């Protein structure tokens, strides 16, 4: 998965225009971030990339870029 694809997924799951999705966004501050939307995002990454992110993984992340790097590293 490249970063452009990651931005599209973030855009669709958190109702943000793609152009506004930046790596330096603190994802917990996104308006649409909630336990349900986080779960939907995790499920989609699992389905599309075969990568399972855990709550411990997310706890170590601050920015969207951190999540992207984590997905790529897995």
């Amino acid at each position, binding site marked *: 998965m490249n970063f452009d694809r990651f931005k599209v997924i973030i855009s669709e799951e958190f109702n943000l225009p793609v152009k506004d999705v930046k790596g330096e966004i603190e994802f917990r501050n996104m308006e649409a971030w909630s336990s*349900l939307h986080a779960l939907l995002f995790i499920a989609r990454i699992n389905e599309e990339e075969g990568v399972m992110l855990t709550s411990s993984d997310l706890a170590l992340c601050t920015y969207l870029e951190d999540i992207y790097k984590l997905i790529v590293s897995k």
Partner: protein
Amino acid sequence: MALSKSIGIQIKGIINLVPKNSEDNQSLELLSEEERSALIKHTGIRYRRVNPNDSIGVKNYFNVGVDKLLNRLKWEKETIDILICVTQTAKVAIPSISCQIHGDLDFESHVLCYDINSGCSGFVYGLHTVSQLLAGLDKPKARAILCCGDISTSLIDSSDRSVRPIFSDAVSIVGIENTNDDSISGYFHLETMGKGQSAIRTELEESGNSFMRLNGIDVFNYSVSHVPTNIQKLVDFSKKSIDEMDAFVFHQANKLINDSITKKAGLESSKVLSSLYEYGNTASASIPLTIGTAWKDLNEKSRWILISGFGVGFSIASAMISFAPEFVASPEEIEF
């Protein structure tokens, strides 16, 4: 690897009970209108049953259900050998609920009674336990009653946006008999991933209340990563074809989890039953209650079904069972 078989054990009847009182997620004040719609769409849960009376506990529902089961099966109390209760919401720790029911309903002293502390996987664990106990009794046509369920709403913080929209109260009472037929009646695969124990837990608050807390991401991860594998090992062990199953009945966690498991396990989605929309997550009653909602459609054809419970523990239990009971009652509303 806890794989096992049961021989000659048959479910004869199932009673399902729910509180008459219900809540609608479409009008849940904790969430915005947009959040409510998203929640219902992705969890599949619209309505939840809520026991309205704190003085009434799971035992009261079990007592009513046991009485109804005995009447409907025309079983005399003296013919019952085993009474097992699966619950995590007993109002008192001592004595066990099964012993309380034994006393309340005046069963005879020869009945074996104990409780199993289990939630989402509890029906399958209870069925496995009862099957092994029945097979070991020195009595032909031995009979058991298995009570499953929780008043989960007694553990819910009404301000918790993750837990409150999901959990619902229900019990199922199951009559099980050793038919003394020597053919295989079930295959079981029971597993535990205790590293995931904190995914669903109760926490004691400073106020003295104990509330259930849920880590949705970890529950999803454990369920989707391990349940399909658990099912595949069960199918391999049974040497049966998955196509021989007339229905697949999962613990009713939520739609997102159950759909993901269905897809990963390669199961035919038209055979997967659900009661989520009407009844939510009904803990250890969820599998028999879900069968009860679909029994009229299954009645003519069902002979083998695959069931799988997973959750609190983290515990996973699946089984393929021969299934031809006399009845499975639709969920009946109860008001005390």
